[in-house]
């Protein structure tokens, strides 16, 4: 009788999902333009960069770490790839690969500092955040890079899906979430990542190379940030040295809203996507309602708390 419940996602994802649906229902009632496939596609497109950054952030938080450098690495990656493609005249694909390589290298450095010298992730990524920011400014002379080859914005262009235009980058985003979900839940390395975050010492004692897992996670997160650079460049059509400054907090917010614990080892990647969508829906819906910007901030503050509180209270009920 109770059997069908076991096909539901775990409670920790259900909560954020309900919050998201509640927010959607609210805005659908309050505004005319909210409830359309096209508007939803728009929101997806708006959260695509933060959503991708949040994949890397989730991986790191699941290992009980935190990454303050993600936004700056994204900015660095987009400057590197756009400058190489325009000023150095490299083939766009090569330039893009080098850009992703640069963020991956930075991620690897984060990982090496965390594993080899055993520095707290907060400090390491605070340091690389500053370093990446400075390099970005120096290398770009703080100038936006424009006139990109078309291949670099290809991911930002829409394809028609069931009559709705959807940016290619959104499909990349969804594909990566699916892939990471599979890797985390159905492969051995994914389970090791959870084990390391849940009880590092136990993972070490059972013979998991915790250092190697962490190193991989940070490097891979760097790669995801590089892909976020690709999407950011494709979306805005420029290489923007000012990008990424608010995305650190936004990505962490998406992870935590999605039900992942900052203490590591507990959380579901799909929750992060929902968390990112919650923020995007708030912003979109409040603008559609014509709420002025200060009040938007006020309402967002209240809603964030309400969303998680509703989740919390519903779980208490269920117990």
């Amino acid at each position, binding site marked *: 009788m109770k059997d069908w419940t076991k096909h539901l996602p775990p409670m920790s994802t259900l909560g954020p999902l309900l919050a998201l649906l509640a927010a959607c229902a609210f805005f659908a009632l309050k505004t005319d333009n909210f409830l359309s496939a096209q508007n939803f596609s728009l929101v997806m497109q708006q959260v695509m960069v933060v959503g991708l950054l949040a994949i890397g952030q989730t991986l790191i938080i699941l290992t009980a770490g935190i990454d303050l450098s993600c936004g700056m690495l994204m900015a660095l990656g987009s400057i590197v790839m756009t400058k190489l493609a325009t000023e150095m005249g490299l083939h766009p694909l090569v330039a893009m690969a080098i850009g992703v390589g640069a963020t991956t290298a930075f991620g690897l450095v984060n990982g090496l500092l965390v594993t080899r010298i055993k520095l707290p992730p907060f400090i390491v990524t605070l340091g690389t955040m500053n370093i990446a920011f400075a390099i970005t400014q120096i290398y770009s002379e703080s100038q936006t890079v424009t006139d990109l080859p078309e291949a670099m914005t290809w991911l930002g262009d829409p394809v028609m899906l069931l009559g709705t235009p959807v940016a290619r980058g959104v499909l990349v985003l969804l594909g990566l979430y699916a892939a990471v979900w599979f*890797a985390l839940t*159905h*492969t*051995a*390395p994914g*389970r*090791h990542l*959870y*084990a390391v975050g*849940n*009880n590092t*010492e*136990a*993972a*070490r*004692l*059972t*013979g*998991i*190379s915790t250092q190697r897992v962490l190193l991989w996670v940070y490097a891979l997160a760097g790669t995801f940030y590089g892909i976020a650079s690709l999407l950011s460049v494709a979306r805005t059509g420029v290489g923007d040295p000012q990008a990424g400054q608010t995305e650190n907090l936004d990505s962490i917010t998406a992870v935590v809203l999605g039900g992942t614990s900052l203490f590591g*080892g*507990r959380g579901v990647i799909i929750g992060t996507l929902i968390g990112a969508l919650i923020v995007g829906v708030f912003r979109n819906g409040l603008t559609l309602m014509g709420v002025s910007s200060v009040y938007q901030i006020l309402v967002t503050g209240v809603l964030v708390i309400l969303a998680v509180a509703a989740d919390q209270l519903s779980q208490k009920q269920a117990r």
Partner: protein
Amino acid sequence: MHAAAPTSSNPVVLQATGLVKRYGQVTALDGADFELRAGEILAVIGDNGAGKSSLIKALSGATIPDQGEILMHGQAIHMKSPIDARRQGIETVYQDLAVAPAMTIAENLFLGRELIKPGFVSQMLRVIDKKRMLEEAIERMNDLKVGIRSMTQAVETLSGGQRQCVAVARAAAFARNVVIMDEPTAALGVKEGNMVLELIRRVRDKGLPVILISHNMPHVFEIADRIHVQRLGKRAAVLNPKMVSMADTVSVMTGAMRPDQLPAEALC
């Protein structure tokens, strides 16, 4: 069943000499020696804080001793982490169990050695075979006759004894060379404890030597071939349980009696 072979003539599998481990002002190991022979069950006993866990942590790569040497089949080995010990085929049940509390029983049993689905793609991606892991987990836990109602429960929701069974089942299932168990029956009930003893015998009968740390003297005397007495961070004596009484053993362990006061045949 219990092969009463004089194991003292068997070849030495695992050996350690002069192990020292200091933590700040506390000396956990103070020049400890150790010797495990092929096919034997070696009990390690001693007061609380005598350095038993520290000793086996050094033998299983969990800590790196400050001084001393560890030899496997006569060859010096240098273990930098538990991974090295696993490569040598040494499996360990740690006293604090080393489980990932938020993960399920099946996942904990196979942690670090997940069963991978057959097929090239699955092997490449290392896709785990959840179904087979669940089945095998049920089987292993049934071996210990512990009544666990759902195998997909997170380990943190288990009772103390159930949690210990998970750790024991894991070590017993995967050992290829040496099994080390640090107080595996401490939290177990009568029935479950006996099942673990039975399991240890089965492992020994497969030819693998077992190191058993226990405070339970009846258990020790029931099952051990030799008894290593640890005292104040050193090996105080190695006793033959067939030739020495429980009371004398406890006296040696607590320092009430010197080992040389025992008859020669009690030592081995």
